[in-house]
């Protein structure tokens, strides 16, 4: 599933700001087509500060194009959000590994952990669960087939997406409907809860880690994350997707 990495200046083709602080940009690219779970390092032409590129997962990709969806709020994402069609943005990607294939995956996204899983579902299918604080944070992006949860009940069921997944597992009428893998991306406590839930039911669970990154390409050793085996893994090299039991959450 891994593809060749590349670094190029890409032209922004589309930009959308659906709300909730979310921004989506689509760029033209000659890089290999990314797989769901992979990410890119993005940086605009803004001089020396902010210095580092930002790691953003692919929300979609096809021959000649790639799409990203991110939440603004910090200096890097705020600036990326100001890019308009025609602007150039530096893209190193596709980087990292991808979510593995599965027959009946459950894809569980928390907040802005959505992009890689929405991309996965679009390409391979699966049942997508999405948890957000409130309806406004979802910015109308939720698709019909998705199963939704929000803290205040303004979108889908009230509660956390972990509760929703737990309840859904409980409601399963037969084992044939049970997920053969749970793939998740979102806040660490959420992913940790899902990992426990999956372990209890012996369902393989894959988590996508977010660690602070500088290079994203495996040269700086900056994105170390504690592995259950003892030492550290580099999220950008061996991940960002890991079997849940291999990493400390």
């Amino acid at each position: 599933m891994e593809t060749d990495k590349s670094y190029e200046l890409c032209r922004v083709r589309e930009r959308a700001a659906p709300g909730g602080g979310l921004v989506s940009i689509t760029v033209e690219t000659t890089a290999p087509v990314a797989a769901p779970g992979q990410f890119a390092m993005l940086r605009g032409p803004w001089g020396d500060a902010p210095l580092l590129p930002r790691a953003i997962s692919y929300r979609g990709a096809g021959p000649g194009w790639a799409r990203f969806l991110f939440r603004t709020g910090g200096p890097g994402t705020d600036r990326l959000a100001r890019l308009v069609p025609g602007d150039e943005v530096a893209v190193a990607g596709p980087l990292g590994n991808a979510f593995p294939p599965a027959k009946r995956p459950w894809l569980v996204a928390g907040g802005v952990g959505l992009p890689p899983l929405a991309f996965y579902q679009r390409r391979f299918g699966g049942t997508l669960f999405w948890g957000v604080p409130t309806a406004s944070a979802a910015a109308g992006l939720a698709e019909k087939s998705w199963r939704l949860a929000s803290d205040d009940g303004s979108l889908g069921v009230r509660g956390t997406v972990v509760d929703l997944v737990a309840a859904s597992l409980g409601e399963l009428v037969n084992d044939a409907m049970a997920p053969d893998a749970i793939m998740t991306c979102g806040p660490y406590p959420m992913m940790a809860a899902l990992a426990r839930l999956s372990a209890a039911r012996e369902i393989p669970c894959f988590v996508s880690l977010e660690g602070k990154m500088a290079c994203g390409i495996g040269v700086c050793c900056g994105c170390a994350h504690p592995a259950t085996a003892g030492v550290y893994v580099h999220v950008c090299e061996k991940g960002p997707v890991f079997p849940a039991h291999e990493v400390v959450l």
Partner: protein
Amino acid sequence: MTVDTTVTLAGVALKNPLMTASGTSGHGLELAPFFDLSILGAFVTKGVSMAPRAGNPPPRLQETPAGLLNAIGLENPGVEAFCAAALPGLATLGIPVVVNCFGEDPERTVAAVEALSRETAVTALELNVSCPNVKAGGIAFGTDPAVLRPLVEACRRATAKPLWVKLSPNVTSIVAMADAALQGGADALTCVNTLLGCDIDVKRRRFLPSPGRGGLSGPATLPVALLKVAEVHRAFPQAPIIGVGGIRRGEDALKYLLAGATAVQIGTAILVEPTAPVRILNELVELCEALGITRPADVIGAAHPGQS
């Protein structure tokens, strides 16, 4: 106008003065997917030590205004694994391979130097005596001339390869440290390693990166590093210097040459932009053309009064 970019650095011929900086370009060919590494004047590896090191817990990185704090903790696979896994690939590049190395104490430092010196693929050794991240390690060597000199002497005895000593900027007098390294037998001086600094997470009331401090690199540090190069060159005009700190553009590289460096290393810029060395080399050549500099080697130290 064609520009002759070759320089000779303490006996090592480089096709141009640009190298990678240690720790920002991997141990081996990690950057190879992004550009043809053989265009470099030399490749400098991440620091290696006799025994493998796991490094520091996260967070190891913290972005600062135009800078980056890192506390990698000298993570590395150890000399043996490095020589087996990374070195053969580097050897195929056909450019000088400089191995950055260190030890937790003088014995282990010498042992690393010795072990690496047996490898024909290694062109030169760069001794990191200035890494601020390991409490027991580099910091003491690199901040006291009386400690540095015997260490360099011991390493000098342990190797016939060119020995570069990478100095720390976190001292009252870098000239005193340069003197100690040269007296100890260093063939060249790499100026400089990262500045010590820290940040704080105000929500969690916690120092960053994880050890409570880290090494500051990137454009923010260029003025400090450039002055260190100038000071060392002024004190020791004959000593070959490799300038490093905050280089992002061809113009930055030329500044280091004018200050007295024979070659330069590119670190954080590679993290920001993996192909940075390619662009910087092009910019350097174009700038030399624009300024009528046919050989960058001719303008080394030329910003010093009486030298141009």
